[in-house]
């Protein structure tokens, strides 16, 4: 492990998420079932491993944190109840809670819309991408 700042970030992520990465037995089922697997630089099982190692800043800098669909497949199917999505969520929040770090800005919305897009898509995207 890493420097004091990394250690502090790791503790913060564990506190926010309630996840214990040491429960992971590295079976990879979370990544196997993740619908965003192909879009991710770091996959769900790597989030668990990297949090355990304290590599939080690397994860914070990765676009992978904006690829979780919140579908709960990894949460449901983890045989050890590790719940990797909660780590992805905590790390994304560490990023977007910073001033000016929103991933989606209101002025981008008109270009994303089409006539049929439900409000649900937009409010969910805002919840995931914006503070």
């Amino acid at each position, binding site marked *: 492990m890493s420097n004091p700042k990394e250690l502090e970030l790791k503790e913060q992520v564990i506190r926010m*998420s309630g996840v214990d990465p040491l429960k992971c037995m590295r079976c990879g089922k979370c990544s196997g079932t993740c619908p965003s697997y192909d*879009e991710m630089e770091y996959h769900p099982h790597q989030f668990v491993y990297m949090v355990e190692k304290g590599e939080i800043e690397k994860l914070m800098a990765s676009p992978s944190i904006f*690829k979780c669909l*919140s579908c709960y497949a990894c949460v*449901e199917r983890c045989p050890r109840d590790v719940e990797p999505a909660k780590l992805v*969520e905590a790390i994304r*929040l560490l990023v977007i809670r910073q001033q000016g770090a929103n991933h989606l800005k209101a002025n981008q919305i008109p270009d994303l819309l089409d006539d049929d897009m*439900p409000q*649900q898509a937009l409010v969910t995207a805002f919840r995931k991408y914006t503070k």
Partner: protein
Amino acid sequence: MVFHYYPGCTLKTKAIDLDKYARASAEALGITLAELDNWQCCGGAFTMAKDEIATKLSSVRALADSRDSALVTVCSACHNVIKQTNDAMKNDAEFAMKVNNYMQLDEPYHGETKVYHYLELLRDVVGFDKVAAAVKNPLKGKKIAAYYGCLLLRPGKVLQMDNPENPQILEDFIRAIGATPVISPYRNECCGGYMATEDKALAAKKSGAVMDSAKEMGADMMITACPLCLYNLTKNAPGEKLPVYYFTELLAEALGVKE
């Protein structure tokens, strides 16, 4: 019987059919859905972080306002967010304390309200046998693939609606309205969800797999409880598509209350 009802933002706009047929069918089955006053949007997704408070308050307000009976939702996302918030209010003492300190309700709220998805109302309160008995126009010969998606069932230990890997509530619903359920292996996989905003290709890939799987199994149509699933399946799935309906529309048709 009267239940509190939380329609949610999309049911007032793009998914009017989901709402309108839910109410009409409930009336036909002897249940009145009384819309909560001044309900606020659930936000579409439950924020999993334990230190996140503000984004869950709209759900707590709806739950606390429903304490005298039970709360019914029909949108998969509202159901998911409100049930997960209720679970946190019941089981996460620190979260509940912060929420109650902030809200200063007449009486603190600790997850007392029972939350039903509309399908649970049909199964557990009305009973699918009673639904079947009230059917006037059975949808005989229709082969319907139920699409659960992700939010209706997961996380299973919190939502406690059905077996999240081998569910049957929508198939039982399909039988109750006189049609034949078609089981597709992608029925509880994600459609691409809100990613349709910034990554259409992902939404096309995921919803396309769901659609193709239902077609391969020989379905004539699909049903869903989620406006975002319906949007991805009808708008973003590539190629030839099966029609996709809200389950409440078929229920209203079967009960003879569809205008």
